[in-house]
């Protein structure tokens, strides 16, 4: 392991509240170890600000293991920063060089209003789940687990969608602030499984249309996949478009209209 340290210039978005006017503040940091995580570097910055009597930067994080989805900001213009398949908390300073200027901004999307500094409100993601991101099975009514065989490939494919951590980087990375990758990951996780078939068409229609209430439209840029810390495949968006088209016909039929 190398014992390198870095001197850095940080340009950090500061904004006191949702309606306050924001601005970039510039901070100098020296002797940052390359073994440090990006968030630990921000901890060092905040310790220095507190020592100087300045209000520290609000930057959210929780598990710091890349699984809870709490953290996330734009680092040099990219959601979660420069490394592929890496959430902000798992980004380490070895990805930067001595003398770098690092621009740190909140996730940028009108559906994610800024709460303070780098913290944003991603509540619309929960609204999409409420619209059908579940299998309706009340506690106690489940059959024996092995009565529902699920081919390994199917379970694996469903897992690829279920791996989504709900961080919202896909929305922040998208030029249209579309929510397709998140929504289709959630839909396909359930639509691929035998347990999810009964509600497949109702779920698809409801979740897609709730998504459209909040987010922009997908025009297949693929930036979402590039930013996704879990590398959710773009195919899921195609599967969801297919399921959505089918759902319009199926749901009408189910309602006796066709």
């Amino acid at each position, binding site marked *: 392991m190398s014992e390198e340290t870095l001197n850095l210039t940080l340009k950090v978005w500061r904004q006191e509240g949702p309606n306050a006017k924001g601005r970039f503040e510039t901070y100098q940091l020296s002797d940052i170890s390359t073994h440090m995580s990006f968030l630990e570097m921000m901890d060092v910055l905040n310790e220095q600000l507190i020592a100087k009597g300045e209000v520290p930067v609000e930057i959210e994080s929780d*598990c710091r293991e890349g699984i809870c989805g709490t953290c996330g900001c734009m680092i040099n213009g990219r959601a979660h920063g420069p490394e592929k398949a890496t959430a902000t908390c798992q980004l380490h300073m070895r990805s930067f060089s001595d003398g770098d200027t690092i621009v740190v901004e909140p996730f940028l999307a009108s559906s994610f209003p800024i709460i303070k500094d780098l913290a944003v409100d991603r509540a619309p993601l929960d609204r999409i789940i409420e619209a059908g991101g579940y299998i309706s099975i009340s506690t106690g009514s489940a059959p024996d687990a092995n009565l529902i065989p699920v081919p390994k490939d199917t*379970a694996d494919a469903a897992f690829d969608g279920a791996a989504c951590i709900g961080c919202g980087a896909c929305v922040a990375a998208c030029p249209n602030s579309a929510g397709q990758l998140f929504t289709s990951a959630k839909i396909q996780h359930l639509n691929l499984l035998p347990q999810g078939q009964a509600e497949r068409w109702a779920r698809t229609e409801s979740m897609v249309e709730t998504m459209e209430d909040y987010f922009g439209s997908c025009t297949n840029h693929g930036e979402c996949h590039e930013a996704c810390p879990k590398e959710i495949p773009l195919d899921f968006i195609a599967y969801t478009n297919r399921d959505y088209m089918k759902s319009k016909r199926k749901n009408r039929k189910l309602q006796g209209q066709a």
Partner: protein
Amino acid sequence: MIGSFDSKVPDGPMAEKWTNHKFNMKLVNPANKRKFEVIVVGTGLAGASAAATMGELGYKVKAFTYSDTPRRAHSIAAQGGINAAKNYQNDGDSVHRLFYDTVKGGDYRSREANVHRLAEVSVNIIDQCVAQGVPFAREYAGQLDNRSFGGAQVSRTFYARGQTGQQLLIGAYSALMRQVSKGSVELHTRTEMLDLIVEDGVARGIVTRDLVTGDVRSHTAHAVVLATGGYGNVYYLSTNAMMCNVTAGWRAHRQGALFANPCYTQIHPTCIPASDEFQSKLTLMSESLRNDGRIWVPRSHDETRMAKDIPDDERYYYLEEKYPAFGNLVPRDVASRNAKTVVDQGMGVGPLKNGVFLDFADAIARDGEQTVREKYGNLFDMYERITGENPYERPMRIYPATHYTMGGLWVDYELQSNVPGLFVVGEANFSDHGANRLGASALMQGLADGYFVLPYTIGNYLAPLLGQGKLSEDDPICQAAVQGVADQTKKWLSVGGTQSVDYYHRELGKLVWDYIGMERDKAGLEKAMTEIPALREEFEKNVRVLGDGQSLNSSLEKVGRVADFFELAELKARDALEREESCGGHFRSESQTPEGEALRNDEDFAHVAAWEWGGDPGSAIKHKEELTFEEVALTQRSYK
């Protein structure tokens, strides 16, 4: 003391207690359930499953989380798996064996009846989760796959790659959101519980602070359920998430709830060692890695060669040598203490000599890299992302870190604390793991409590309350509680000291790790009991909290949590000092076998130490719940 201190363990044979008790408990009829309001604090596995299930039953539920969405809770980070006595592998597992293993693994410091119930409902959990769409690992024919985990001699662990906790939490979260959409659960995000409202000794509600606006208010209900996790962050460095804290439980303790066995902490043997002093948390590598990885250190104290260049006879495979039967799969406490021993002896590896090797070279040679990648790929990737080292080419470095806390608020068989109307589920209670938790049992307990135990037992409490209203939020009791929290918040903002909250948390963590860590002794614990209050006093006078109370302010959130950690730490030291034996995760160096294993003292300490708040952190009053063992004979653990 408020309330009763009766464990309420039902009579009758062990295997029939729960079935009989379910029949004997009072029921709330379906039409009356909507007349009862229940508050659930915390939305991890236990909280989300409890809130969802009670919503399904028809209760009016209010769920609270300090996160922006229920799906962030730290249950999500559990990697390895969840146990269930399904015996799908036909290898001799049964409810009784899971029960037996859990009591033994807990070093005979848990309540048998609770553990038996846990083993019984374990099978229902798997059914429920599969039906929800949890993508557990499968065989090619579509059946569920299992593995052996953490010292178990049967394969009873269900898993979803290395992200079992995430998948189970998404299942519970989706069930919760279904109830939110139906209107049976009212969800409050970014809202922290800061006090318990007690009227005439009965829990009647909570005081919350909106973390975005700073608004402090009360919420009242017929019952309050805490599902607020463990207190591992008292060590500062732990595998817990940054926000995990003891505040909800501690404030309930200050309102009269007994806090049980605070000295029981599990140190997890397979974490990535700290790289420098700015380390903010430690990352756990699932101990499933111990199934195929071999743990060793170089025999030479000043080894400079790369690991792969060190010949076998110069490697010390200390677990395989000392425990030939269990080898690298000895329980967590044994693995952890042995790692500490070799590192203390100067055989540690890595730049700070603060780790041991976990080596997959043999597994890769035997099974091929592809097989190893399929089993552990995401863990290997995570390791490389954090350390910058490729574990396919060189061994991982691991070291123990605080991971789970077996102690917590005291509850009876019905998961009710000694304060009537206050229920505690999941890691926040002390119930099922005794002095040491077995691998893959935390997820099991959280979901057992939330899906299959609390929804029944809470009815037994609520049924007789039919027709009684809840406390008005305008009641002077609520107003006083709200004022207390608001004053406390203002007080922290006006201290105007010189050091940050994190500074004091870090300093506290060092004391707790040094004196109440993997190995404790009388002298150290006595030191802890003077040094912790001294540091707390300095903290209260000299902490610096900037910003305001009307917008998001994480320093302000944290200062109250650290204050509670200070008080808990003092109690933890006292509990550890007075428990003059070693058991499970509590190792007193004065109490060990000639082989260096934990030596219990069943004569004097086969009890739960349940502490009552005595007005200040130093004056806690101890109550004892004696533990009796009908089914499992007490033996000295031996993993040789």
